[in-house]
Every structure is written in C-alpha cells, then in structure tokens.
C-alpha cells in the first residue's frame, strides 16, 4: 500500500510542502543569515558578523522590554491559571447556570487583540479619569492594564481546558480518598491537582507562550507609551524594524534572540511539568 501512495506525492504532499518552504523554511533561514548582515531590503545585505548582536545588547530599550516582558509573563501566567482553575473547580460542582457561565467566560477569547486593546483602553481610561490619570501615565499603569486585559481574555479558554481535566478524574478515586478521611485541601492537593496535571501542562504552556509573544494587545492598549516604557519584546522588535532607519539588521538579530528565548521557555516548561504528570 505504501508504494501505491508514494507515487501520489505531487498531489498529497507537494502543495503543502511548497507553501511551507515558501512561508516558513526560506524566511527562517534567510532571517538567520540576515541577522549577521546590514541591510535595508533583502537584496542589499552585506555581511557584518556579530555586530548586530552586540548592538542589541547595548540597546537600552531592548533590555527594558526584556525585563518588562519577563515580569509580565510571570504575573499573567500565575493570575490566569489560578483564576481559571478556581472558576473551573466551582463550575464542576453542578450548580445552576453552569453552561451559561461557561459560555460567557469563554467569549472574550474570540475577540482579536487589536479590538480588545481599544475596548480596554476606553474602559480603563474612563476609570483612571476619576483620578486625573491615564493608562499612559507610567509604565506600571500599562502593565496592570495589560494584566487585566489578558486575564479577561484568557481565563475562559484555560477554564474550558481545566473543566475537561477535572471532569476526567474518575469518581471512584475521589470517593476512595473521602472514605480514607481526606478533607477538602488534602483532596485538592493529593488527588485533584495531580490528576489534572496534563491540563496544567497545557494551560501553563499556552499562557506562557501567549504572554511572552504578546503583540496586538500591547500595541493597541498603550502602544509602548510613555516613551517605550510599556513596550514588550515583540513590539520592540517590530519598532526596531519599521520605526528606526538603519536598524533592520539589529531588528533581525533581536528576532533571532526572541526565537531562542521562546524555544528555551517552551522546551523547559514542557519537560518540567511533564515530569509531574501521573500515569492514569
């Protein structure tokens, strides 16, 4: 059978592979090469070695964006997952209106980052106006604004995944623990949490990468104001490419560093939480 299928390579695999080469492999390899070049368009690149990388680390906006992003990622991962888990626990107790609540909490997820950013800009500025401030008053206003926005958007998504995880726990397991005299917190720590570990793996992975790579919401909510101090990495890279002349090579070098950071985070997180998963 394998031989029969193999002859149909041009029909089955070729279209995807061509697009994949064009849309991913070539841009990726060119991106790596260009990070060692000075250029304004792709055709006028001259090789300059690691000069771009040294410029990246002497660029204060990049270092600031790096710390700002790291801090934002930590806070948002913790808050989103804690809230999502609590809501999921409460929504699996069989209360009235469970389906309705689930529907409402999930909804903001479908709204795009740009639209969300402006919705929250007007809302948060409306609240801050009572204190004579705006979101762009200082970088910490933008920071907490973005945390609130991301929680509003992502809690529902993670909640849905946690609910599925909690519902998969066999009822006998909880009964057995109760018969053995486990109280509420013990039940949570020794039965529920280990059993939903696969969901925790997925949710922390998704929130980690989403937060670290955040772009649309950041741009629409504060746009990096005041003076780039609420700028996250993705926006900083975009700005370096398209906002400053002669910085294209540096932008590409930043993008390579960004990619390496994302890859390290993804791999580390996966190995760390997978270790804690129990065999079912």
């Amino acid at each position, binding site marked *: *059978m*394998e031989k*029969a*299928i*193999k002859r*149909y*390579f041009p029909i*089955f*695999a070729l279209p*995807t592979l061509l*697009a*994949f080469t*064009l*849309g*991913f*492999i*070539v*841009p*990726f390899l060119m*991106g790596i090469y*260009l990070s060692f070049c000075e250029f304004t*368009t*792709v055709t006028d690149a001259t090789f300059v070695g690691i000069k771009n990388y040294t410029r990246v680390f002497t660029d204060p906006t990049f270092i600031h964006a790096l710390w700002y992003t790291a801090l934002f990622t930590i806070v948002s991962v913790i808050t989103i997952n804690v809230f999502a888990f609590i809501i999921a626990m409460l929504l699996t*107790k*069989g*209360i*009235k209106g469970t389906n309705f609540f689930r529907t*409402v909490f*999930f909804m903001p997820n*479908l*709204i795009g*980052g*740009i*639209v969300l950013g*402006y*919705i*929250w800009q*007007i*809302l948060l*500025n*409306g609240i801050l*106006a009572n204190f004579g401030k705006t979101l762009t008053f200082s970088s910490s206003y933008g920071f907490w604004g973005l945390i609130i926005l991301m929680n509003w958007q992502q809690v529902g998504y993670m909640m*849905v*995944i946690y609910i*599925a995880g909690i519902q998969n726990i066999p009822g006998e397991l909880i009964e057995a623990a109760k018969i053995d005299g486990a109280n509420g917190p013990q039940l949570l720590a020794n039965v529920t949490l280990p059993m939903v570990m696969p969901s925790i793996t997925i949710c922390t992975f998704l929130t980690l990468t989403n937060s670290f*790579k955040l*772009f*649309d919401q950041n741009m*629409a909510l504060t746009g990096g104001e005041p003076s780039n101090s609420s700028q996250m990495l993705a926006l900083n*890279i*975009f700005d370096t*490419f398209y906002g400053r002349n002669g910085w*294209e090579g540096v*932008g*590409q070098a930043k*993008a390579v560093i*960004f*990619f390496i950071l*994302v890859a390290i985070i993804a*791999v580390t997180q996966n190995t760390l939480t997978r270790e804690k998963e129990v065999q079912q």
Partner: protein
Amino acid sequence: MAKEGKAKGADEQVSAVRRAKHGWIITLCFTILTVFYLYPIFMVTINAFKKKGFITENAFALPNSRSFFGLQNFIKGAQKTKIFQAAGYSAFITLFSVGVIILCTSMCAWYITRVKNKFTTGIYMLCLFSMVVPFQMVMFTLSKIANILKLNNPVGIIVVYLGFGAGLAVFMFCGFVKSIPLEIEEAAMIDGCTPIQTYFQVVFPIMKPTAITVAILETMWIWNDYLLPYLVLDINKYKTIPIVIQYLKGGYGAVDWGMMMAMLVLAIIPIVVFYIVCQKYIIEGVVAGAVKG
C-alpha cells in the same frame, strides 16, 4: 452488587442536597462576575451612540438627549474606513485560507504518516519545530518574499497562511491518522480504490472531528490576525478588520473615539454571532486541540 448500587445512589443523593444548599451562593457570585465580564462590551456599545466629546468626558454615562448621536458614528466610520469592504476581505481570506489549510495539510499529514522514510520524518520534525518559532522571527523576510512573488493580495496571502499555519495543522492531523486502523484503508485499496479515492471516500470522512478542531483554531487565528496581513498585503488596496481598527488610531492624527467605538461594535458583532451559532463546536474544538497540542 445490588446493595452496593443502592448505597452509592443514596450517597449521591446526599451530596446532591449538599450541592444545592451552597449552589445558589456560587450561582449568585458567578452572576455578578458575569455582569463584570460583559460590561466592557456593553460599555463600548453605549459609547458608540454618543458624540465623541462626551466619550472622553464620562465614558460610563448612558447616552442622553445631549450626547446621543444616533447612527452617525456608524455611518461616518463606515464611510471613512470602508469597514464593510474590510469585512469582506477578512471573510474571504479566513474562509479560503482555512479551507485550503484543511484540505492540503490533512492530505500531507496522511501521506507523511503512511509513507515512512527519512524524508517524511524530517518533514514531521520540521512542522513540530515551526510551532515554537514566533512570527517576529520570519516577519521581515516573509513579507519581502511575499512581495517579490506578488502574493500581496487576498488570493496570494492564502499561500502564506498555508505555509505559516501548516505546522500546527499537520501535527494535529498526523496525531489522528496514527490512530486510524490500517485495515480500513487496505480494504478500500483491495476493493480497487486509488489512493485519491481511498483518501476522499474513506480517510477524510473519519478525520472530520480533527478537521473541525483545526478549522476552529485556524479561524480564530486568521480572522483576528493583524501583523501578518498588515505586512504581507498591499494595505493601500486591501485592509482586513483588525487593520482598519488600528488604522483609525494611527492614520488620522487624533483619535475619533465615537467612530472607534462604532467600528469596534461592528467588529464584534460577527464574532458574537459566529460564537452563538457554533458554540458547541468551538468549545469542544478548543478542548480537543489542547489535549493534542
């Protein structure tokens, strides 16, 4: 056995009573939370009907006789931004990109799972790898390539989406193909089906649940995507909804918040309708997608 069943039933009744006792408190709390959750959308909607000066003055007030602006924000905004045209482009790009992604990547996934050699394993690994690469890594080179190859229009961008979105889709389809018993396909082949017939009449129908999951995830991504179409498309000619919204902020100096609110409402309406209609599939699709990812 019967006794045990009875005891369990009684136990369940007890816990059901306990649940009901505390249940209303939780329901009440969640009802309040729901109000907070829906408030931002409500607020945008009321502000869409106000004159722009009144929005920054007090964003929380309901429109009154002085601030009420009727549908002016919508009419002016739609004229200025051509948002309905943008909605058309958004719909076109999303619909066809998702269609092409489903068709091409599912075929590719079947091929690379059934034909096992170093080359196909390599493709699979590359697809996995592409999932961790952020868009910023390729955005500059990708937009230049798209420009050179004249893919900077709503038809060409479908190829770009297929290329950049292939990783996740191939990965998910591969996971499913591995679980399809080989005997089914062999039986079809023995009965005289060509691989193409086998694929479309036997394999693809079995893959439908995964196809729905992939379709939902890719639709959520492409419909809301800002950066890729902004960089790839010739934006003087073609704008999608997120580009129009952002353009309203950047393109005309001071922001007209009245128009902005009206356009936000127009941007949200199709999403809410889509969500209400396909709610069950969306939530199931997200759960299924998460388990495999």
